[in-house]
């Protein structure tokens, strides 16, 4: 998952990557900071190093592998992991014995034993702190036996054990005897929610979910029945669709979840099994034996990161997370400094990515005047027309140091290539990907008037884009390029048999040459980008997105369905931290109305839409008169929001003593709580049930917030919260702790035995089964507050007119749940706020800024080049069976009801080829992968005579 991101960062022309370095100091002001870096010696020049790994193979020194959390070994000359960026080795001088073998082996001459610590300076305009966290070290918690018993591992270690690139190559084994475990226990909240033993009062937010995931993957990897038990206080699966996953683990895949905090873990002598002692629901002590125990360790800011933050003058909270304001989630106390990810507070991957985009927005908004001034310009010569020429193919065979050359007879492959039809030139290179070889290829293309290029080396996944750029740089169409992977698919596999490997390399080259001869020039359509944005929805998310885009200098139209801006936040009073929501909304409304780049249209309704990324056109009706208007724009930001569920349960609507949490807040604001003897709250109303399986994320904190408010206004009022799991994730946990300290009583109930409510003249009677007493408890109360979940706003019109997909609960679907939480599947369309899923105001603001950031990345360009690899329908022979329409993962093929034919919009097509493959009449072609361009490879492979 992370690998493409690493490659993107490594190749990005706007990103300068400085590794092996630390920030010593930052001086100056926003817009002009002077950064002092200390660059640690790496001892291998990352520019010269090609990552071939020959140095590590010859290094005689064994060192502990920190990447696999000390579960296995590596060499002193090493790379952390195979996908590392930059793909360059370094020498660990703590273990290196200075034998000189690696220096002798390195053909690229990259080893520099005399490399030294240096100090460099940088000038930057803004700074983003994203130092992240490390897993909590459980060594100090003696009762868990970590460090003493080999089969007690941390969740991070277990993650490496399950990984194919990990110490046991993905085989499920326990460290002591490398036996496959039969029973595994996960112990939650190790280093989290624990002020007593480790001082970390917060919830780490991610451990429940990763424990469920680890249990599920362990079950997949196990050969027999694997028994998985997760010991927890509350299961906190509050993210989008997380509850579905938890339910699947619990109900379908047989993972057991037990509510207990562990008393102790001890080892069964000689066997390595572990005895886990805990008190069950009724308070009785239980003992169970497991083959392995996984400690679900929490997230913790590293001391050196905290030290750095303090050195730079950034305020931290009591747990060393960077202090931010509820309404400015990525802004630190030092102007020009922003933060994101776990350094700001515990959060999961989508949350971190969202904040990262928000921080990029904030850092960029300060520097908007300078945008584009520091970017290298790439000049591309005019394209040569080769359509009338016979194929003149150049074949470049790579040695990849000795990765290929050490096994395959590369000169023989080169000579063989020269005999193939259409080949005008062939050569072999030490490293075909090195800069000097690229220059050489350019010269050869021009000198020999080559019109097709084949590189026989490694994976196109990592290198094709670069070679295609080389073709473009000397005027050759980039689609006249083909790769043969003679490393990953050949020399690495057949390293034991040189002859076989050489023969297979010839076969692969012959296939690629055959395909190259059939490649055709493809031209990428250039679409100019309309630099205007459309934001749909004028709540907190929409307003922040519009301001965000306006601040980045882009004209923005903000559409609101109602007659005034503000959205659902108009119904709220304070955040749990005490932030004044009404003041914030009013201030934001004023700001957006006054913004010279933002046009606000209220009472707006979308009536028509067409176009694609960079060039959309949306028709609206606005105002009382339903005046029609068409808006042309380049991007769309969806911020349609959500509302509080209107319950049908627990006498709501029948008895006015039953209210929702939002209504309770109103009441506390208007009348206070002094007239109330008791208040009962029921959690998960309209959430986590059959109709709405997911958790609404925010209701636990709403309940705690209101409970604290009641206790503040009227300490004698009794407050009972009836709950299933309290999900006060992250720093919200402190408020839950405070509520318990203030005397709020929390009673857990089971999904299957919900509380019962009956109305009496003078009070409401709530009956709930207490799990400790194993008896019904009756509470007489003046007021019952239902923690009603969220419901996505009614977006039937937007969804059907603009063709945006929603999940069954009505929330819009993002491009990728983990990696692209702000992008929608269609390019140029972004998503923020509760339209995406339930979230807090601070999370909404971060996502709105993130959406503005993602849109800015798009709008900053003047034009986009569409990929030339797209599907085309032969409409004359198409039978309109709709198989393509129903199969396309991106929903691109559509039946045009006017023309009565299937259309595939090339601007929207991702070129994945699914429709081409499924078309029963074979009338959909995919450029660059036409039938003849693929079949010829098979023919060439089977054409044994040529060999």
């Amino acid at each position: 998952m992370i690998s493409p991101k690493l490659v993107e960062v490594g190749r990005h022309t706007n990103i300068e990557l400085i590794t092996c370095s630390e920030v010593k100091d930052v001086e100056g002001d926003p817009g002009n900071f002077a950064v002092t870096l200390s660059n640690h010696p790496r001892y291998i020049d990352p520019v010269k190093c090609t990552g071939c790994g020959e140095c590590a193979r010859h290094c005689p020194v064994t060192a502990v592998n920190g990447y696999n959390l000390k579960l296995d070994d590596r060499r002193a000359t090493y790379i952390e992991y195979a996908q590392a960026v930059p793909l360059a080795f370094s020498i660990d001088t703590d273990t290196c014995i200075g034998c000189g073998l690696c220096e002798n082996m390195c053909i690229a001459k990259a080893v520099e034993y005399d490399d030294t610590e240096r100090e460099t300076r940088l000038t930057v305009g803004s700074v983003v702190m994203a130092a992240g966290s490390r897993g909590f070290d459980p060594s100090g918690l003696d009762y868990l036996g970590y460090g003493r018993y080999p089969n007690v591992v941390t969740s991070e270690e277990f993650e490496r054990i399950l990984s194919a690139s990990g110490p046991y190559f993905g085989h499920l084994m326990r460290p002591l005897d490398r036996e496959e475990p039969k029973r595994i226990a996960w112990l939650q909240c190790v280093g989290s929610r624990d002020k007593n033993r480790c001082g970390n009062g917060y919830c780490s937010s991610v451990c429940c979910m990763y424990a469920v995931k680890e249990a599920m993957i362990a079950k997949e990897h196990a050969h027999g029945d694997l028994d998985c038990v997760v010991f927890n206080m509350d299961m906190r699966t509050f993210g989008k669709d997380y509850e579905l996953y938890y339910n699947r683990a619990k109900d379908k895949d047989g993972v057991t979840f037990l509510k207990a905090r562990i008393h102790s873990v001890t080892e069964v002598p000689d066997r390595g099994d572990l005895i886990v002692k805990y008190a069950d629901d009724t308070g009785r002590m239980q003992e169970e034996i497991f083959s392995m125990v996984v400690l679900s360790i929490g997230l913790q800011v590293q001391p050196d990161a905290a030290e750095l933050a303090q050195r730079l003058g950034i305020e931290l909270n009591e747990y060393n997370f960077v202090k931010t304001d509820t309404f400015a989630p990525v802004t630190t106390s030092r102007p020009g400094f922003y933060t994101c990810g776990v350094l700001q507070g515990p959060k999961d991957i989508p949350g971190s990515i969202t904040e990262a985009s928000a921080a990029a927005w904030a850092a960029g908004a300060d520097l908007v005047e300078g945008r584009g001034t520091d970017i290298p310009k790439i000049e591309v010569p005019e394209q040569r027309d080769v359509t009338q020429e016979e194929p003149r193919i150049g074949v470049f065979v790579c040695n990849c140091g000795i990765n290929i050359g050490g096994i395959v007879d590369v000169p023989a492959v080169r000579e063989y290539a020269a005999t193939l039809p259409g080949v005008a030139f062939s050569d072999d290179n030490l490293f075909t990907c090195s800069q000097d070889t690229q220059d050489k290829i350019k010269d050869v293309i021009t000198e020999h008037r080559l019109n097709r290029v084949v590189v026989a080396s490694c994976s196109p996944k990592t290198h094709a884009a670069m070679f295609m750029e080389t073709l473009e740089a000397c005027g050759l169409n980039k689609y006249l390029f083909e790769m043969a992977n003679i490393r990953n698919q050949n020399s690495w596999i057949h390293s034991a048999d040189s002859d076989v490997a050489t023969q297979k390399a010839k076969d692969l080259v012959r296939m690629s040459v055959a395909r190259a001869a059939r490649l055709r020039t493809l031209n990428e359509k250039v679409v100019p980008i309309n630099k205007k944005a459309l934001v749909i929805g004028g709540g907190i998310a929409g307003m922040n997105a519009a301001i965000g885009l306006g601040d980045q200098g882009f004209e923005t139209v903000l559409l609101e369905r109602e007659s005034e801006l503000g959205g659902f936040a108009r119904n709220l009073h304070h955040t749990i931290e005490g932030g004044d929501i009404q003041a914030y909304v009013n201030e934001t409304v004023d700001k957006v109305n006054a913004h010279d780049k933002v046009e606000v249209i209220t009472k707006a309704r979308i009536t028509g839409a067409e176009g694609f990324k960079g060039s959309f056109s949306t028709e609206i009706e606005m105002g009382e008169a339903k005046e029609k208007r068409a808006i042309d724009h380049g991007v769309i930001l969806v911020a349609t929001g959500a509302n509080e569920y209107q319950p049908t349960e627990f006498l709501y609507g029948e008895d006015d003593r039953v209210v929702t949490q939002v209504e309770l807040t109103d009441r506390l604001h208007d009348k206070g709580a002094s007239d109330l003897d008791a208040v009962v709250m029921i959690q998960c109303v309209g959430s986590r049930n059959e109709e709405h399986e997911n958790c609404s994320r925010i209701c636990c904190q709403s309940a705690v917030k209101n409970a604290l408010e009641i206790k503040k206004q009227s300490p004698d009022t009794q407050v009972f919260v009836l709950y299933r799991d309290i999900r006060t994730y992250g720093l919200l946990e402190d408020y839950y702790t405070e509520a318990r300290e203030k005397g709020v009583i929390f009673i857990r109930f089971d999904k299957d035995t919900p509380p019962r409510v009956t109305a009496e003249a003078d009070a409401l009677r709530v009956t709930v089964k207490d799990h400790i007493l194993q008896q019904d408890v009756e509470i007489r109360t003046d007021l019952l507050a239902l923690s009603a979940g969220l419901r996505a706003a009614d977006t039937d019109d937007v969804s059907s007119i603009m063709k945006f997909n929603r999940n069954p609960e009505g929330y819009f679907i993002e491009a990728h749940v983990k990696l692209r939480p702000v992008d929608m599947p269609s390019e140029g369309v972004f998503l923020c706020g509760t339209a995406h899923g339930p979230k807090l105001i601070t999370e909404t603001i971060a996502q709105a800024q993130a959406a503005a950031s993602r849109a800015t990345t798009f709008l900053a360009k003047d034009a986009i080049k569409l990929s030339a690899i797209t599907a085309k329908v032969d409409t004359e022979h198409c039978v309109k069976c709709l198989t393509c329409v129903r199969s396309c993962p991106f929903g691109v093929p559509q039946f045009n009801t006017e023309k009565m034919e299937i259309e595939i919009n090339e601007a929207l097509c991702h070129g994945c080829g699914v429709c081409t493959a499924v078309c029963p009449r074979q009338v959909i072609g995919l450029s660059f992968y036409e039938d003849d361009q693929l079949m010829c490879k098979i023919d060439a492979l089977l054409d044994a005579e040529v060999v």
Partner: protein
Amino acid sequence: MIVAKRKPFDEIMELLQDYKKVLTVGCGTCVAVCLAGGEKEVAVLNSELDMARKLADNPIELGSTTLERQCDREYLDELASKVDEYDALLSMACGVGIQFLAERYPEKPVLPAVDTSGLAVNQSVGFYEERCRSCQQCVLGWTGGICPVTMCAKGLYNGPCGGTNLGSCEIDPEQPCAWYMIHERLAKQGRIDNIKNICSAVGWKDTVPRTLIQPGYKKPEEEGA
């Protein structure tokens, strides 16, 4: 739409075992749409046959073509120049097309490569559900648009049998009772009285091949009359 399913491969192999040169004829309409007999399936079947026959040391030469429709004479005529080159024709059309192809080229063995299963709706890619048995006596007007002939295991015309079980059919709890569904829908539409309408049984005894002539059209031989 007419839906069909490819025959088991072994059965097709058996049908073809004595022929050395065969033309596989796809049909570009219903069976293409239901992913049983369009260009793609013709290509897939031919590749499979080619490999299997090579492995069996009994190589076969295969041609392929897909006609617009095998139930129209004009499209079948396209094959006239090719047919003589082959020992047999393998049709991937529905039963109608297969027979019409055999009728058009009576001197050639015509073999079926698919089993025709009925008239169905497309519920999802590759998933079809039967909705009509073409009984020639449509009662959908009285039954809330739900066909008792197709949806009821017994094809009952006048209410459910004793096997109706809380909305399910006795043959399978997953199979809804057609008459239960009819009752529910009619009740919802406020025309439950329709259920009392007695439908007479279909005259299945006269099951000779049926013909259909749209109003305003005539049989060709009557054209001049």
